[in-house]
């Protein structure tokens, strides 16, 4: 892989981690001493994607703003990697007027039509709309594709199955990505899924399926390259499962008492690992970190500056 690509992947991963750490900080900042989910500048559920950066970076590297990405309740990493407007996304998470949805959506409902990004908090139900984006793209004939992402827990939801069959049947330009972080909230994969690799499920639809075992961004990149090419060239959908890592809790406030693998988690952090692989010196790494930090803090400052939505507008936007 070219050095420039490697550095780009690393940069994206660092940007994501920097972002998630900043949101973590802001989310908890005013929820002390007693954690109250509804309190503070960022209220509500908060699902952060630290540890899953390789998936977002490796997948989205192959996409342009004209391709679609649909994400889940845990969407930040994919939004960032796909180029969603950082400021407006952050303003949305803060529930502000300049947010992508003027504060209507929140962190599980980020819509940026300029890069065809969307997400949904309902498990696996982001897949079907991605099929429609792919359908529209094929119709337009410009070779664009849709990438639909879920967690491994979502694979057991009916919408997953229906979507893969229909996409395969109609040879839609979709890449299905499963982020296997071993857990669906507190339920380990072994207690939710009757097979050890969801890649084998691809055969149930007659499409290619691969499993990337080690949360390595370059392996994700490689697997996605093939799948994206196939989709763009009319070869139909593919399934990629990545064994990734949920570095933190399912949502903020999750004490993870159930989590048997907690001890090993820090050692599996993909970012230091990749940095070591790239043999980045401190200066290079610090520059990347500082750039990321500057962008992230700018976005957070922007969000905080943005006014709260006017309660008088609460009934708007139900209908066009």
């Amino acid at each position, binding site marked *: 892989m070219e050095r420039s690509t490697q550095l780009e992947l690393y940069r994206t991963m660092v940007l994501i981690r920097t972002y998630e750490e900043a949101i973590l900080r802001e989310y908890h900042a005013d929820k002390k001493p007693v954690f109250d989910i509804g309190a503070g500048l960022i209220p509500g559920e908060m699902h952060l994607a630290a540890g899953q950066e390789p998936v977002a970076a490796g997948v989205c590297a192959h996409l342009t703003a004209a391709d679609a990405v649909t994400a889940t309740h845990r969407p930040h990493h994919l939004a960032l990697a796909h180029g969603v407007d950082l400021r407006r996304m952050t303003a949305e998470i803060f529930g502000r007027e300049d947010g992508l949805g003027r504060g209507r959506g929140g962190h599980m409902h980020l819509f940026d039509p300029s890069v065809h990004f969307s997400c949904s908090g309902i498990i696996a*139900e982001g897949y079907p709309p991605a099929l429609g*984006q792919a359908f529209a793209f094929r119709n337009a004939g410009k070779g664009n594709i849709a990438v639909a992402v879920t967690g491994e827990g979502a694979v057991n939801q009916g919408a997953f199955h229906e979507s893969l069959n229909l996409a395969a049947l109609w040879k839609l330009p979709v890449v299905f990505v499963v982020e296997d972080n071993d857990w669906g909230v507190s339920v380990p994969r072994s207690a939710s899924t009757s097979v050890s690799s969801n890649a084998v499920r691809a055969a149930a639809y007659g499409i290619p399926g691969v499993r990337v075992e080690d949360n390595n961004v370059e392996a994700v990149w490689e697997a996605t390259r093939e799948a994206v090419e196939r989709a763009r060239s009319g070869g139909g959908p593919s399934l990629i499962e990545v064994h990734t890592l949920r570095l933190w809790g399912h949502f903020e406030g999750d004490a993870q008492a159930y989590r048997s693998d907690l001890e090993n988690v820090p050692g599996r952090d993909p970012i230091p690992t990749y940095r070591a692989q790239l043999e980045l010196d401190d200066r290079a790494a610090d520059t990347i970190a500082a750039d990321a930090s500057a962008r992230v803090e700018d976005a957070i400052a922007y969000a905080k500056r943005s006014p709260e939505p006017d309660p008088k507008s609460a009934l708007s936007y139900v*209908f066009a």
Partner: protein
Amino acid sequence: MTATAATAKTRTLTTAKAMVEGIAQEMRRDPAVFVLGEDIGTYGGVFSSTTGLLDEFGADRVLDTPISESAFIGLATGAATEGMRPIAELMFADFFGVCMDQIYNHMAKIHFESAGNVKVPMVITTAVGGGYSDGTQHSQCLWGTFAHLPGMKVVVPSNPADAKGLMISAIRDDNPVIYMFHKGIMGLPWMAKNRRSVAPVESEPYEIPIGKAAIPRAGSDVTIVTLSLSVHHALDVADDLAAEGIDCEVVDLRSVVPLDLDTILESLGHTGHLVVVDEDYLSFGLSGEIVSRVVEKDPALLRKPPLRVAVPDVPLPYARPLEHEVLPGPARIRQAVLEVLGR
């Protein structure tokens, strides 16, 4: 052009054919419109809601789907967010339970969640209604279920002209629209035909505004607010009662969301008596909403307690005598009118 333009050319069509004509004319006009669903291609829709479309528009725009409602309704939603104008058929409204998340958590909410940055211009067509012994899972109306959840319009034509005009309006609308057609008014050759299921329809495309009720019969004694097949039962009852000196006004809602309260209030202004006829379940639905909105506005509009004629919170039974007992048929409507007038 509106439905009442005097110069328009009209022919006599069934409701099904009028509905298809509306779709076809929009498909000719707008390449973004396409149709998908189960048995809507070669078969032409099990209730003839898409007959002939495949022949004219081909398999790229008229797509038979697997029996995967979540997938294909979601597909329609995604395509709509990218500027297409899909029409997805949910074969029976009774099947909403296999795909409701796509409908109400996605199709209906994306516009709101994105503060209007994403539009979802699509139509879900779906067959409703009982009366031919199709049992608990194939006979329901359920418009109350859809109407309760914000973000989708709900239209319910009762006759061929409205079927076409509401279809065209629904396709052109930038919002998701649930289009519910009653099997009993489609004019199907294999089902007892309501005599008004074949009627004049203009040849040219036209819109019926969504959210505007019609008054197919004016009257002074009592207002019967209703929709869909029940409009015809109400009109039949009104005809009968006219002979007995009772003058019924019939309001055909045509649209459940938005609901045309003004027309109802205006009618009650001169009749003072309200009967709501609703083939959906009685409780927690349309009929209660209508009564409630009237009373909130002005309880004095009602000279007598209003009456609701609906399915009395029981699944639709298969056996004919049971089903007809619970449906809001002419006998029950007649009785309600007499009762509300104190006769």
